[in-house]
């Protein structure tokens, strides 16, 4: 950090906007996303060299196969958390969708693609219901989606009762988990990459994406600058439901089995990955590549620790600490830093931050 210090103030003097006050390289490399990606690379390389069997032919395949639903659901979750909302119902939507797929395919002999379409449409409707209550009724998303977490799980239980559905028909069932050629990559990463690119474009390169960030910074300001806040949120929750349903179809096919607790608890893994990936829980800040790295970081850590013979308690503690640590790093260190004596501060920047509280908020973003 000391090496870049002389550059920054000079740049700040010549530019008006804070976001452009650093060189392009510094902006690309000195942010949370880059930090998470670096951590992912470091942990991965370290595990390759030091954890026995991590370099084996099954590791990456298993890791992607198990974390595919988390990666999928993290994509729309990123956009939702950037608006300052949250969707806790994704894992229940996944469970409901898996149940629908199971009932349609196994009990009613529907083909897998048609059942998947039905499940995804239902998932989108479930998401839209969340979105309606959040966006148009104005209820807090935390409360709404805690409710639908229970409601949609109940829907899954109602559909399949106490029985377990298994016995999906052959070829299409194994497609998602088959390897692409002789690589370690299962087929499911193809839709994940496509969706990741689409969501990346949507969030970072469209006016819709910019409105998502604006809503996260301030609902009202976004409204007064012409953003249709309610519609944007409705679309995001609908997308979240649809993608969670897609993940549900995948989980059903992967396990060849659907039970009432399929996917239970996934929502926390998704949110952990999103937050670790540098998205601010207060909204307004985040990037999709960071989220993907965040989810993969959890996956790689989990896999490396398991291969090393660690129990689930150690793994949970480490991932929990990592998450808490990253939240602390992004929210509190800048505030503490702001309280310390300042050095090399340009007069222009200080004059733009008259109130101390306002200043810390901007920094925290």
């Amino acid at each position, binding site marked *: *950090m000391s090496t*870049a*210090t002389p550059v*920054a103030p000079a740049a700040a003097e010549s530019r008006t906007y*804070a976001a452009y006050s*650093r060189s392009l390289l*510094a902006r690309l490399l000195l*942010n*949370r996303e880059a*930090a*998470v990606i*670096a*951590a992912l690379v*470091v942990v991965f390389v*370290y595990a390759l060299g*030091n*954890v*026995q*069997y*991590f370099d084996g032919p*099954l590791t990456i395949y*298993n890791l992607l*196969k*198990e974390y595919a639903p988390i990666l999928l659901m993290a994509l729309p979750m990123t956009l939702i958390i950037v608006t300052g909302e949250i969707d806790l119902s994704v894992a229940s939507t996944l469970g409901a969708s898996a149940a629908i797929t199971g009932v349609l395919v196994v009990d009613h002999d529907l083909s897998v693609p048609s059942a998947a379409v039905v499940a995804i449409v239902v998932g989108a409707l479930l998401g839209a219901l969340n979105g309606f209550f959040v966006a148009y009724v104005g209820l807090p998303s935390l409360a709404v989606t805690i409710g639908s977490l229970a409601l949609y799980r109940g829907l899954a239980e109602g559909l399949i009762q106490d029985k*377990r559905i*298994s016995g999906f028909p052959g070829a299409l069932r194994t497609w998602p988990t088959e390897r692409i050629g002789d690589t370690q990559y299962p087929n499911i990463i193809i839709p994940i990459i496509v969706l990741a690119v689409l969501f990346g474009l949507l969030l970072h390169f469209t006016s819709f994406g910019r409105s998502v960030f604006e809503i996260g910074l301030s609902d009202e300001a976004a409204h007064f600058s012409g953003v249709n806040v309610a519609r944007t949120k409705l679309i995001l929750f609908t997308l979240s439901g649809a993608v969670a349903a897609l993940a549900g179809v995948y*989980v059903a096919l992967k*396990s*060849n*089995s659907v*039970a009432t*607790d*399929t996917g239970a*608890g996934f929502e926390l893994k998704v949110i952990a990955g999103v937050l670790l990936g540098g998205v601010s829980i207060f909204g307004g800040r985040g990037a999709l590549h960071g989220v993907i790295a965040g989810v993969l*970081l959890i996956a790689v*850590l*989990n*896999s*490396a*620790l*398991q291969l*090393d*013979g*660690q*129990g*689930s*308690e150690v793994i949970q503690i*480490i991932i929990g600490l*990592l998450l808490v*640590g*990253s939240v602390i*790093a*992004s929210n509190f*260190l*800048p505030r503490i830093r*702001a309280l310390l004596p*300042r050095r090399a501060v340009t007069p222009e*920047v200080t004059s733009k931050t008259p109130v101390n509280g306002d*200043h810390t908020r901007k*920094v925290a973003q």
Partner: protein
Amino acid sequence: MRINSKRFAAGAALALVATLGLAACGSDDDGGSDGGGGGGDKTTVTFLPKNLGNPYFETSDAGGKKAVEEFGGTFAEVGPDTAGPDAQVSYIDTAAAQGVNALIVSANDPTALCDSLNAARDAGTKVVTFDSDTDPECRDLFINQATAEGIAKVQVDMIAEQIGDAGEIAILSAAANATNQNAWIDLIEEDLAANHPNIKLVDTVYGDDDDQTSFDKTAALLADHPNLKGIVSPTTVGISAAARYLSTSASKGKVALTGLGTPDQMRDYVKDGTVTEFALWNPEELGYLSAYAGKALADGDITGAEGDTFEAGDLGEFTVGADSTVLLGDPFRFNAENIDEFHF
């Protein structure tokens, strides 16, 4: 200021994330050898119970550990915290990647684990299921704790011994549509008709595996049948609720109670004389046998084909039956003499 803070935050996040990650991996190196070690000549055996922290599986895994220590292998126990249908998948995947010689699994779901188990078998790991089986094509061997016939017979034998082979008995079962219990009850009725003509089964009631319902049904049974001499409860919930009722009622010591129970639930009632003897398989022996079966498979002594025989330490010789299944033996009877040796 903004610039410095942001860079500081980024740097700090990187440092934190990296140190945590590295510390995590680094510190494991010392104690991490017990997780795998497929490359060595020791047989590596990994136990994967339905979930960790379950006394039943702690007992069975302890039996497995004892066996592994006897034959000089390397023992590991891994498992999820909760018994979700595919919660075990990542542990199977990990064992496969580690190349463990034998994976001993109690399956949470008969089909959800199949792809992973078969991937592990393709990678050279021998898969033994115990307690709860998977579909037969996903494992090399299933160690069956008891057959339905064995379970039915031990309960008939116990109640016959306790009531002097004559008199009225009743059955307190789980739910009316419980598959296992109904199969056992049919066999109990057959055995009674064939071998115990003086014992009369007067009633079968259903406590739905609910403690309070079972308690109330026990009270009703005693009221309806004043000459009742014994109750058989082929469910752990039922037998403990019935024992709780009997222990405080006037019938204590007069009406015999037996069935399937766990030592922890029944200890007090055995000690206060409400219950003389009850049965269940011995999970420690189950784990012990499973570990030896895993070793026999890994060493190539057996392939899991019907008629294969292998030695299982103190338990002696076992023969593989149909569908690659090995039967542990007759259910184990718990009574005042041995109950303190068991904690599950």
